């Protein structure tokens, strides 16, 4: 690839730890370069980023760039776009990976526009095709009904955002060696056009859905906040998290943080119990990685059953309390 070398991962920190998506991207990048001699670089942003450089190396980075200027401490799309664009021009990676996160969704298209780069958003797989010098990107389209395989062109940087839980992180190696490079410069002040006035964190979900091993979720069939109490009770007995589809969120029965599906969170639990969920394509796409899917719905023709391993045709008002009792006995 004409002059382009290696992979740049744009890292993210959350609540003073390295975001799991960043570890996943490092693992994925490592896998892509391990056939050749190319380098994986990691960019970390903010004044507090320095202590994480070593961790980045342990998870697979060969070089860590730390942008320590205070303007990068809180996420600002303009500042971050400026920085990633600038770094890509300097180090010319063949591939730049970001998470399909607030940062990636905003920054990837803008940097691609500035660099005349290739762009694939929300990839679930990125592989290298050494014969044609192309990267192959798989991404779900049509609300998860179809999968598009995209080839990256030659002679330009390819920028991809990757869906969380699509790439596997490596186990950290304490003795891995790497180089740490400080980037002291801030962004050109004239490039900052949008100012953040206020940040509000929403009501925190009790569990992190993306990490949960067991999820009990309710859909439009639950009918209201009261019904969700039953869902919570079942989740509690199973030691799992509570999720929801788009209808309960739109109707404000549950907070947005609980939404699972194309427009919400993509989950990959061992057990997914879908209660009163019709099974719209955009929801299925968010749960298809679950090992075991159980559907409870009073409509035997509900689409959800087609995507489930176990099905019970029943009104949830009857089924959920019975299931709570059954599990209480079994899990004692």
């Amino acid at each position: 690839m004409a002059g382009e070398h290696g992979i740049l991962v744009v890292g993210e920190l959350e609540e003073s730890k390295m975001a799991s998506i960043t570890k996943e991207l490092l693992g994925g990048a490592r896998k892509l370069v391990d056939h050749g001699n190319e380098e994986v670089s990691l960019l970390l942003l903010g004044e507090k980023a320095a202590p994480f450089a070593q961790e980045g190396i342990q998870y697979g980075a060969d070089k860590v760039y730390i942008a320590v200027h205070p303007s990068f401490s809180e996420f600002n799309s303009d500042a971050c776009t400026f920085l990633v664009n600038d770094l890509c021009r300097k180090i010319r990676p063949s591939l730049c990976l970001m998470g399909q996160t607030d940062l990636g969704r905003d920054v990837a298209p803008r940097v691609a526009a500035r660099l005349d780069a290739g762009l694939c958003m929300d990839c679930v797989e990125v592989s290298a095709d050494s014969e044609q010098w192309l990267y192959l990107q798989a991404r779900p389209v049509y609300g998860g009904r179809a999968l598009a395989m995209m080839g990256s062109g030659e002679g330009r940087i390819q920028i991809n955002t990757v869906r969380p839980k699509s790439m596997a992180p490596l186990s950290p190696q304490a003795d891995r060696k790497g180089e740490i490079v400080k980037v002291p410069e801030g962004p050109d002040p004239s490039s900052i056009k949008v100012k953040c006035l206020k940040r509000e964190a929403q009501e925190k979900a009790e569990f992190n859905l993306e990490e949960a091993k067991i999820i009990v979720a309710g859909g439009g069939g639950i009918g209201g906040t009261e019904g969700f109490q039953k869902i919570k009770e079942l989740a509690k007995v199973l030691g799992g998290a509570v999720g929801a589809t788009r209808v309960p969120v739109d109707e404000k029965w549950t907070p947005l943080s609980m939404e699972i599906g194309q427009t919400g969170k993509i989950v990959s639990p061992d057990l997914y119990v879908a209660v009163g969920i019709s099974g719209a394509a955009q929801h299925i796409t968010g749960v298809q990685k679950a090992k075991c899917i159980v559907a409870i719905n009073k409509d035997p023709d509900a689409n959800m059953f087609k995507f489930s391993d176990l099905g019970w045709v029943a009104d949830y008002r009857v089924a959920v309390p019975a299931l709570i009792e059954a599990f209480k006995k079994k899990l004692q």
Partner: protein
Amino acid sequence: MEIITCIKQILDPDLPPAKFTIDAQKNRVIPPEGIPPVINPDDALAVEAALRIKEKKGGRITILTLGGKTAEDMVRKALAMGADEGRIISAPDFEGLDSFATAYLLSQAIRKVGKFDLVLCGRQAADWDFGAVGSVLAEFLGIPAVTRAKEISPLDGKLTVEKVSIAGSETLEVGLPALVTVSNELGKARIPSGWGIITAAKKEIPTWSLPDIGVDPSSGKLSARNKLLKLSAPSMERKCEWVKGDVPAEVAEKLAQKIMEKKVL
């Protein structure tokens, strides 16, 4: 305020799964018979957002779309909702255009429209789920962008925008002209009134060709940066084992047992 709203027509996302078929030769979805395309839901909300701003601050809303035969129906729907004018950019094979080509055509059309304060787009199209056109268009126009808005408040010469973020929400301030993409959290798009439909039916909707907006079709700017190699519909279906019994307690007991046997607890 002069507002330009970009809309896209897409395959109805609520299409029943049985009607969703792919032409494996052409790597395209076969348009199902009898199910007309719709305005992309987030783009309809961009029209709604424009109307809400116009109600507060006055102004004019121009709808822009790329398309062929069915594009006029989409634009007329947006006019019936209350937008003032529409323009169609007649692009050959607009389905094959990537985000950059789309944004380039829109940017050229916007330059031809001339004066504007605000460009609104939906956050992403429910067919390709790419979510990049708005941001790329802002870059091409050299104006600031705010993505995934759930509320837009116009002030003098600037906007405050409440946007959806993974952690919750952010309130941002941006000077005009600017581009904002609108998320589904904005609410519901209004249904056109009878009067709206009647007035919209009478409006002229000019079509602009590529030369009209100063685009040379043979320049490389319309060719896709990433090639679509394959479009497939992998089945996500599973074999559902029905758990049955005479009373709920019996079914619950059986179901719990089967879940335990799968060793996922």
